[in-house]
């Protein structure tokens, strides 16, 4: 016992020093990465005089939410001075159905590909895998034509379709890899019990999937909300998503450059993805640990 504690004592001194170094380094990295965010938040809370006269890193002299409310419903985007609000709604109307549909179809595909290995299942999976490596830029032209044929050009519904189609590759991949480890015997047992394709899916497979659903939702929401290229390519004017509107807001060159409004607008546009991480991330971890205790 005594010997142990002597050794322990000798170790603690150097271990403590090591700890200090590690935490010091981590703090520096954290500060470095948080700096831009901090500058954005501070700038968005300053007024223009403050920004002009004081340093970028200085704390605001007077806190004001002018920039936030201006960005939300007054700022001019192109010629329309409506603020980001309607575009924010566009993005929600685009992202929520697209995330829901692509996640649902991914789950269904993953289930069919792993548990009902039909003829050609591997080929289909190979093609889907291939699809997830196709860059956005390649599909823009054919996609624009397709949307034209379908009468969905320049509409939020069109964007929902594009994002769903483009997202299915990824969601299928996620769910397929998750369902591969789900025992086939479950499906066999349910088949003998008399459950069909969809009953097994609803009653047995989906209830076992919360963690992978959360992962997929986070991924899809981030991708779709943050998308700029599809939004800029396939929509115009009032149907644009918030990312495109943000770009137009920042690039609108009438009068003085309002950095505080730009910053507030950027933060507004980024808020939902942050929120999804904060809210769903917790469920994600909970899902993981719940899975771990399952026998």
């Amino acid at each position, binding site marked *: 016992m005594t010997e142990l504690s002597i050794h322990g004592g000798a170790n603690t001194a150097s271990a403590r020093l090591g700890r200090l170094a590690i935490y010091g380094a981590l703090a520096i990295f954290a500060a470095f990465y948080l700096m831009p965010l901090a500058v954005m938040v501070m700038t968005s809370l300053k007024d223009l005089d403050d920004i002009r006269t004081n340093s970028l890193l200085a704390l605001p002299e007077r806190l004001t939410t002018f920039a936030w409310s201006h960005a939300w419903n007054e700022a001019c985007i192109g010629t329309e001075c409506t603020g980001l609000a309607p575009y924010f709604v566009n993005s929600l109307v685009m992202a929520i159905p697209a995330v829901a549909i692509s996640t649902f179809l991914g789950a269904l595909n993953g289930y069919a590909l792993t548990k009902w290995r039909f003829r050609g299942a591997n080929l289909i999976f190979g093609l889907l895998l291939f699809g997830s490596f196709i860059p956005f830029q390649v599909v823009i032209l054919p996609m624009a034509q397709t949307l034209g044929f379908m009468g969905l050009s320049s509409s939020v519904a069109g964007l929902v379709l594009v994002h769903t189609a483009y997202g299915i590759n990824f969601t299928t991949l996620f769910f397929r890899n998750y369902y591969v480890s789900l*025992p086939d015997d479950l499906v066999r047992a349910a088949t003998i*019990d008399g*459950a069909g394709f969809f009953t097994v899916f609803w009653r*047995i497979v989906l209830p076992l999937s919360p963690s992978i659903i959360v992962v997929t939702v986070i991924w899809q929401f981030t991708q779709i909300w943050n998308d700029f290229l599809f939004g800029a390519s396939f929509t115009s004017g009032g149907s644009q998503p918030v990312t495109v509107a943000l770009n137009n807001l920042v690039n609108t060159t009438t009068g003085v450059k309002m950095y505080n409004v730009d910053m507030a607008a950027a933060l507004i546009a980024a808020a939902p993805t942050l929120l999804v991480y904060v809210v769903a991330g917790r469920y994600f971890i909970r899902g993981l640990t719940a899975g771990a*205790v*399952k*026998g």
Partner: protein
Amino acid sequence: MAASALDIRDVRKDFGATSVLKGVSLSLAPGEFLVLLGPSGCGKSTLLNMIAGLDPITAGEIAIDGRVVNQVHPKDRDIAMVFQSYALYPNMSVAKNIAFGLEMRHIDRAERERRIADVSALLQIDHLLKRKPSQLSGGQRQRVAMGRALVRDPKVFLFDEPLSNLDAKLRVDMRTEIKKLHRRLGTTIVYVTHDQIEAMTLATRIAVMRAGVIEQLATPQQLYDEPANMYVGGFVGSPPMNFIPATLVENGSALAVRFAVGPQGAGGEVTLPLVDTPAAARGYVGKPVVFGLRPDALTDFSDAEAMLRPHGQRLDVEVDVLEPTGAEALTYVTLGGTTAIARVNARRAVDVGETASLLADMSHARLFDPDSEQAIG
């Protein structure tokens, strides 16, 4: 006679180019307990899956209760299956697990509750009904898996190695329980295992399988006493049957086996006369045969034993290895140039290097063709 519960006629299964079942036929009367016994990879689970309808068969015919079910969906075959992994639905309570099959068959709630109560009382799992499978021990999960099958009251039960995930003690307990259950319910069961003790204790008949064919289909006792070939003799019984290379000779009017005794034939040769030799054996006179003798037919020589075994022949041989197991000692000796095992009363066991007097009960002798490995006669 009633229709057979299960008929399998020349069933084949190919996975691509590999043939996994190469023509399996068997017929099962209602109430029989058939065990499919064989080493890993011989096609036991595949055959069970074909009966269940989870995998289509390549050729042949399967009939359940007189009805050909080749094209019938698993849920309509009137079978229930217990999986090696139990395959309990992790998201459902024990009660829901048991009732799922009934629910899928649109059996009303009151009836479901009643049947759950019956089955859970039978299996003594009534106190677990509200739990999730993850909150159960291995043995409890096993019971729930059986409950899920029992509650449906099907024509044929299929068990795929249901006990192999349990520890040794629990396995023996559950084995007894399954046997009791079968007695009590009189159901038809097809049970897969690679544990020959499980097979011997449970089965009314055993199908010994090897590489996609049934080597022998017989009652446990027939299988033990009259193995159809060396494979079955070696697979069934622990320790396995002794296979002693010998020469068949004429011994007066009867036949006898002659072989060398001891390491390098140090003990000279013995000639042991056979009892009731089959006619086919005549053709082997002067030729090599394999003389098969169960270790329990090769015992210590005592006057009492000799009296009990009128066809006992004395055999003096040097002991190579001795393995005491409590009541008896497995005595390893060299006969016909290979190792043979004798089951000797532990109190009369002879030490290594000394000469043991053994008694070979020739009424249990079995002759095999050394080339085809099939039994002679």
